[in-house]
């Protein structure tokens, strides 16, 4: 394992220190917690948004804290959902009197820990609502199983629900628009190489020189299928097809996100982006806005995911508004 770290068991605390020092005017670590909050939190009379999950997905989630997006991000250990007490600390730190909205990615651990925190907060009289994001079409959406995962499409929820809250939306309105984004966003990813959890010390799986994993998650889990590596165009085509098979985007306007998983050069993401645009153009789907970069990573995994969000006028306006989070530019 080659990493620029001090102690594999202290990476999260060390990172949080570095994040706070990088943006002392904008962010703060809530003392004795793993919570990064807006410097000016709690913001009175605004619905407060909280997201989070395991660490190792940077810039998710601290990079999305800021006016127009999240009020706080809760960092768990690497790839491990944060615990209810930490999430509760976040809730208490940002609650401004208009309720708290939790953006949860659909993993058993995340859902349980956030729900337990919500129960604890409600016991203290704080109104809490949530959305469970499940945009990953690699996994079947069945009520008999864990269902689809939440991956990079979650960033669109942060942005759109965040802007709704910033512009005075009520808890119910924020929840409604978050659900709407979740209903309309689909993602799928692939990897060329695995990643190594610092405390584990060895890669999560092994791929041969000619292999790739399709339908990868963001926690170093193996994907749904192992294949011979093909061209960027074929990869973009396969991922996009799986997404388009899942909802009908015909005739609509969309936002596209080509997300790098950590080690993929931006050059390659732009090459994928070119193909995604040409596929969508061929199908008469109009791209309203494109995001190319690292938004939701999996440590140093090489690979990418594609997310497509179907837009209407409300979503366009909310997506387009300026945000001041460091990792999301519009």
């Amino acid at each position, binding site marked *: 394992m080659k990493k620029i770290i001090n102690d594999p068991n202290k990476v999260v605390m060390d990172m949080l220190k570095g994040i706070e020092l990088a943006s002392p005017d904008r962010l703060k670590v809530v003392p004795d917690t793993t919570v990064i909050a807006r410097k000016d939190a709690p913001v009175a009379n605004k619905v407060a948004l909280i997201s989070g999950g395991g660490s190792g997905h940077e810039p998710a989630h601290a990079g999305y804290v800021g006016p127009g997006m999240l009020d706080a991000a809760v960092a768990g250990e690497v790839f*491990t959902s*944060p*615990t209810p007490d930490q999430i509760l600390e976040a809730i208490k730190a940002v609650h401004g009197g208009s309720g708290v909205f939790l953006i949860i990615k659909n993993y058993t651990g995340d859902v349980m*820990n956030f729900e337990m925190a919500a129960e604890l907060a409600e016991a203290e009289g704080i109104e809490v609502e949530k959305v469970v994001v499940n945009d990953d079409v690699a996994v079947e959406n069945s009520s008999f199983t*864990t269902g689809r995962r939440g991956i990079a499409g979650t960033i669109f929820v942060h942005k759109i629900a965040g802007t709704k809250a910033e512009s005075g939306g009520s808890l119910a309105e924020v929840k409604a628009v978050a659900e709407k984004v979740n209903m309309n966003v689909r993602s799928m990813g692939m990897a060329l190489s695995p990643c190594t959890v610092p405390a584990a010390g060895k890669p999560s799986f092994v791929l041969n020189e000619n292999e790739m994993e399709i339908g990868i*998650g963001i926690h170093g889990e193996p994907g749904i299928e192992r294949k011979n590596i093909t061209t960027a165009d074929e990869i973009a085509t396969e991922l996009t097809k799986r997404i388009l098979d899942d909802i009908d985007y015909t005739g609509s306007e969309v936002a596209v996100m080509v997300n790098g998983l950590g080690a993929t050069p931006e050059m390659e993401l732009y090459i994928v982006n070119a193909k995604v645009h040409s596929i969508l153009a061929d199908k008469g789907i109009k791209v309203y806005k494109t995001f190319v970069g690292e938004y939701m990573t999996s440590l140093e995994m090489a690979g990418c995911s594609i997310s497509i969000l179907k837009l209407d006028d409300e979503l366009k306006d909310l997506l387009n508004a300026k945000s001041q989070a460091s990792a999301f530019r519009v």
Partner: protein
Amino acid sequence: MLTTEQTIMWMEKMSIKVQENKEYLTSLDQAIGDGDHGINLSRGFSEVVSKISATNYNSSSDVLKDVAMTLMSKVGGASGPLYGTAFLKLSMALNEKESTFETFTTGVDEALNGIIMRGKAQPGEKTMVDVWSPVVKLFKETNEFNSDKLKDVAREAAEATKDVKATKGRASYLGDRSIGHIDSGSMSSYYLFEALAEVLSEGAK
């Protein structure tokens, strides 16, 4: 059936087993999950041991309550809330009752119900439920504690998860590719019952 001291020994033994098998548990989770189960439990149970060794207890129930709260706030992931809930239910079942085989049986039964309530998995979905459930059955079907039987049942149940296709937890994302690997949470649950068996059979000597 389980004295305060034995409860503490149970947790200490479990902690040792988890540290010793940290890499093995992690490698099981790497194969079909995200590779942190050993790390998570090792962090959690060392915190448990430091917590309970720094505190004086008057009952098993109090020990188990601290175990529950510590796991809940130090483990995270799926296993944190699940083990946390299990120990909380067990603690509640033993609260202000004499610790008999019957109360303990009720306790593990309620712990299992807690896991099912939180995680919504049924037996056969390749989760720790697949170990807890035959263990509870064993407790219910017998009327005294049998260390060897407990170990056997738990171990066989954990190993049997190998042939199951996961439909809950992270391994479910792999579909058929989850077959052929033991479930990490089932293996750690086996260690838990093995530790209990060892503590109680030592006590019996």
